[in-house]
C-alpha cells in the first residue's frame, strides 16, 4: 500500500468521541466537519487547576536537507505510549498551505522514504 492508501484505509473516530475521551464536554469544542475541532476557552478555564501530565520534547541532531523524522517519531511515540496503556496526546505544529504547493514538507519526506525503501508508512496523520 502507498502512503495515501494506508491513510485512506485508516478508521477514523468522530472527533466528538476523541474529545469526550479527553474529558472535553460538548461546550468545550467547536467542530469543523466530522474530524476536526477547535478547543474553546472554556476548556482552559475548567482545567486550569488540574495537575500537569509529563512533557516530552522530541528534538534531533542537525538534519540533512531531507529531515530526520521528528514528526514521525513524535507520532510514533504518542501512538506507542497508547499501545502500552498510557494516556498520551500530541502537541504539534500546523503545516501551512504554501508547503503543500511547494514541496509537500509534511509528507514528501516520507514518500521519498517509501519509494526508495519499499517500506510502509503507517503514521501519516488523518485529518
Amino acid at each position, binding site marked *: 500500500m502507498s502512503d*495515501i492508501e494506508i*491513510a485512506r484505509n*485508516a*478508521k*477514523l*473516530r468522530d472527533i466528538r468521541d*476523541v474529545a469526550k475521551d*479527553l474529558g*472535553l464536554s460538548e461546550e468545550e469544542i467547536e467542530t469543523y466537519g466530522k474530524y*476536526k475541532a*477547535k*478547543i*474553546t*476557552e472554556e*476548556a482552559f478555564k475548567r*482545567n486550569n487547576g488540574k495537575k*500537569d*501530565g*509529563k*512533557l*516530552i*520534547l522530541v*528534538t*534531533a*541532531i*542537525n*538534519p*540533512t*536537507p531531507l529531515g530526520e523524522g521528528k514528526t*514521525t*517519531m*513524535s507520532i*510514533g*511515540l*504518542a*501512538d506507542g*505510549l*497508547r*499501545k*502500552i496503556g498510557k*494516556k498520551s*496526546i*500530541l*502537541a*504539534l505544529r*500546523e503545516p*501551512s*498551505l*504554501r508547503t*503543500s*504547493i*511547494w514541496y509537500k514538507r*509534511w*509528507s514528501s519526506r*516520507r514518500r521519498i*522514504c517509501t519509494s526508495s525503501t519499499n517500506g510502509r508508512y*503507517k*503514521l501519516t*496523520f*488523518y485529518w
Partner: protein
Amino acid sequence: MEDINLHFTGDIHAMTAANNLLAALIDNHIFFGNELGFKRVVWKRCLDLNDRQLRKIRCGLSHEKGMVERDDGFDITVASEIMAILCLSKDLEDLKARIGRIIVGYNEKDEPITAKDLKAEGSLTVLLKDAINPNLVQTLENTPAIVHGGPFANIAHGCNSIRATRLGLKLADYCVTEAGFGADLGAEKFLDIKCREANLKPDAVVCVATMRALKYHGGASKEEVQQENMEALEKGMHNLLRHIDNLKNKFGLNVIVAINRFLTDTDKEIEFLQNKLKENGIEMSLVEAWAKGGNGARDLAEKVVKLCEKEENFKFTYELDEEVEEKIRKIATKIYGAEDVEFSEEAMESIKQIKKLGYGNLPVCIAKTQYSFSDDPKNLECKEKFNIHAQEVILKSGAGFIVVITGKMMTMPGLPKVPAAESIDIDENGNIVGIF
C-alpha cells in the same frame, strides 16, 4: 484528509488577514496625513504561498493625491510576527497586548511607532479570536493530536503554541511535542524561550538520529548516505554526542536517543551505534514506527515512561537580566561550541537602541543555519574553532524576543523549477491527487 495540508481550520489565513490589516492601516495612516510621522515602515505584508516575485516590491504607484510611493515586500505568513505572537500568547488579553507592542515603523527621530499607536490591536485580535484556539485531530491510530501554530524556526522560535502544549498537559498524562530543526536551534529555543515564557519544563527529551544524518555529518555526500559507511558513521557521531551533552549537561535534562530506522540501515551500522552510545552511557531505542506504527515505538515508549520519573535539573542557557551581547555569547559558546561572537557595527547599533527602548531583558532568538553548529551551512564537521557572526539584530517587541541574524535568512522562499502544484489535481468526483 488532505485538509491539514490545505486550509485546515483557517488559522493561517486569519493570521495573513491580521498581518495585512496592520499593513493597510499603516499606509492608510500615511495617506491621511501621517500624523504619527512615519519616516520608515518596517512592517511587511505577507502571504501563505512561496512567491519570490514579491520579496521586494514598489507600491503606492497609482499617482492619486496623497498616495505615498514606497518600497515594500512580502514575507510568508509563518514568518510574520503575528504567528510568533499567537504561539506565545497565553490568552486573548495577552494576544491583544502583544499585538499592541508590535513596532511597525520609526519616525524622524528614530523613535518606534507601534500597532497601538495606530489603534490596531483590537481589530487584529478580533480577526484572530478563533485562530488562538487549538485544533484537535487524531493520528491514524486514533491518538489525539493538538495541532496549533507553526512559526519559523530560524527568525522565530519554531514551536507550536503555548496554549496547545499547556492544554495537552492538562488533558493527558503524557504530552509529546517537538521543536523545529536540530537541538541546537529548536530545543534551545523551546527551552530558553517557550519553556521560560510558559513556565514549562520537559520531563524527558527524545533526540532523533538517523544513520543518514550521522553519515552526512561524517563527510558522506547526500548521494552516499544510503550505503553502509562505517568510517563516515563513526566520524559523524560527534554531532550526536554534542547534542546529547548539551541536553544532558548544559540544560540538565533526561535524554534518550531514538534511532529512526530506515530499511537501508545495515545491522552492522546499528550495532556500532548501539555500542558507541552504551560506551558513552547514553540510553537509546531503535524505533521502527515508520514501518510499524505505534508498535514500532513500544520500546521507546517504555523507556520514556521510566525516564519521566527521573529527577531532572533543568536550567536555562542564560538569564534574562544579562546583557544582550552576553546572552548571545552564552548560546554561541555553550550550545554551539563557538569560540566567540563577532558583532557587526549594525548589530551593535541595534543592540544599543534595543537597550535604550527598555527591551534589553528579552530572550534572544538566533537565526542560524540548521545544518551545522556553526553559522556556515557547509561546515558540517566543525573540526576547527569557529566564531558566530551576529550580522543584524532585530527587536520583535510583540513576540517578545530579540532576533539575531547570523547568515542569509529567507523569509519569502520561491518555488522549485517543478513545483508540487504541477502534479496536484482533482477529478470529477472531487478526489484530490498529488498533495499527499
